[in-house]
């Protein structure tokens, strides 16, 4: 009687091609069932007329997409876009020096500093956002300290302003900017900087002409990793911006819950996706050109 292992071996496909498909199958089925199918359901919802009790009724309509071009919603789109862009920019300005410092720290310190960067990710984003509320509210730490120090007499209104939302977004996404930039700086061949120094480049010229261009892949990856999730964020604007500072994420959430308008929520989701896709295509375009350059 053949042993179990021998019988199992007959299940393994012979040709490399078959084996490739066999490796793809489990994950592929998963994605098909829990990603592609829901996506198609959403697409169908976004194209069907709204039912009276929140569902959909049979039919085909583009009214939900058309509704989006209402100035009210366009403002939300514009705000989402600008804030995501701003958040990305702030993360870059704050993150690059941090990544640079870590990459140039001694090997003893490097891993500890990296640990500090990812430490916040060990707790729930929700909990951390609530912590920000305690920090920023009228009777929060910031206002208490400023008043005790005599710098201000009245508490500053921070919470439920765009400043609070931006602070929350930057705080949440900063590690995703730091890590890829760190990776590209750490990989940078130090002899390139020595070569530049030997050729007469000042520290400033070495940074601008060697370090910066060669860390561009990290910068781009960081920007994508920050910009795309920022476009879809809803927790931060909801908790720190109050009801006044809607982003698309909040709009979608509202349509699916409070407003019970699933078709419009679905349409809004697809518009977010279109924005994300556009951002990814821009990124891929620049990356391809760069890879030709770095090959």
């Amino acid at each position: 009687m053949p042993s179990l292992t021998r019988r199992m071996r007959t299940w393994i496909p012979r040709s490399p091609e078959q084996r490739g498909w066999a490796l793809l199958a489990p994950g592929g089925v998963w994605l098909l069932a829990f990603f592609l199918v829901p996506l198609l359901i959403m697409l169908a919802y976004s194209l069907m007329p709204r039912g009276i009790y929140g569902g959909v009724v049979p039919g085909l309509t583009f009214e939900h997409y058309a509704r989006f071009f209402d100035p009210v919603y366009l403002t939300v789109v514009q705000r989402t876009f600008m804030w995501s862009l701003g958040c990305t920019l702030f993360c870059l300005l704050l993150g690059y020096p941090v990544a640079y410092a870590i990459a140039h720290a001694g090997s003893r310190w490097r891993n500890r500093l990296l640990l500090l960067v990812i430490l916040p990710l060990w707790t729930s984003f929700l909990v951390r956002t609530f912590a920000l509320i305690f920090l920023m509210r009228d009777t929060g730490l910031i206002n208490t300290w400023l008043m005790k120090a005599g710098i201000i007499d009245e508490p500053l209104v921070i919470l439920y302003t765009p400043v609070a939302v931006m602070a929350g977004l930057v705080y949440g996404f900063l590690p995703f900017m730091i890590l890829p930039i760190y990776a590209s700086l750490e990989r940078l061949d130090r002899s390139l900087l020595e070569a530049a120094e030997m050729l007469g480049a000042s520290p400033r010229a070495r940074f601008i002409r060697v370090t910066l261009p060669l860390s561009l892949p990290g910068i781009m990856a960081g920007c994508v990793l920050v910009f795309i999730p920022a476009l879809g964020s809803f927790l931060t604007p909801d908790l720190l911006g109050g009801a006044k500072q809607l982003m698309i994420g909040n709009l979608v959430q509202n349509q699916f819950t409070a407003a019970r308008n699933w078709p419009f929520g679905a349409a809004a989701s697809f518009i977010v996706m279109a924005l994300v896709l556009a951002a990814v295509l821009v990124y891929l375009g620049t990356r391809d050109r760069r890879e030709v350059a770095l090959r």
Partner: protein
Amino acid sequence: MTAPAAGPPVVELIHISKRFGHVVAVDDLSLEIQSREFFSLLGPSGCGKTTTLRLLAGFETPDNGEIRLLGEPANQKRPYQRGVGMVFQNYALFPHLTVARNVSFGLEQQKIPRPVADDRVRRALQLVRLDPKLFADRLPGQLSGGQRQRVALARALVLQPAILLLDEPLGAIDLQLRKEMQLELKALNQHLGTTFVYVTHDQEEALTMSDRIAVMNHGKVAQLGTPVEIYENPRTTFVARFIGESNLLEGSAHRRQGNNWSVVLPDHGQEIQVPHHSSIHAGALVRVVVRPEWMQLLPPGELAPGLNTVTGSVRETLYAGPAVHVVVELPGSKSVSVAVHREGQLAKPIRWERGDPTLIAWHPQDSRVVTED
């Protein structure tokens, strides 16, 4: 080989030391390199040759001692103030810049006007035999190893340094191309009149190209001299072993006859003659180095007046193209290698077979007395 021009040395290292933590990389090193010289720092990895080069470049500062370049103290000078250029081990070309931009990098830092810079870049590329039309707009990633090497060379030479530092520049290039590049580097050195300081662990490369070689070991110069001096007259067992192949025989000094000492080899009591050396006195342990190609093999019993002879038996013959290396076992399990020429061709098959008794003979003057490191 051209004699180095007389005059003040362009590079002076005066009692230089450099430590990294507890590791002494360079240990009280003193060197002088003459103008236009092709000077090699040769040694195994960790011998301090690369650190010495980096001290010259200004990437490291010495803990002790003084560096003088072109007659001026250079300890405090930044790399680009030293009048030196450098070719890095892995080329260190800027991967995001074209060949032309790589070469013009240094010129741009000096704010040389564009038309002048372009012209100098073109001439530098022609100097290293890269067609500017073909290569100027390529990126380093699109070049072969040899072409990258040429670009790195052009990038350093375009600034017309008085001294060019080369850190194992041919290490990553395949053998055929390496031979070609060796000749070209040597030709550039003579044509430009630039002083080359060349770091390598490849003894053959150093012998082929250099005017003088400093063989380094443990942060010190083990021997300094022309390739001929280093190869034919190694001073220590380390130098003899590191440069070329060598047979080391050890025995005790017996008595002096005129300018020669007779040395008795242990185990088999055979006696050989070696020239006098300051380290020899009666009863002293004497280390003798004889190169394989300085020895010949004779049939046993043949008379060889005036030559040193030692009997042994053939253990192996190794065919190596131009020569056949016959490994001969001496009584007492020590073995020596003898390079036999003009044998092993089709017309003249190798005479020696495993187990054959044989007589190794060489001229007493070809016995090099060396000291322990």
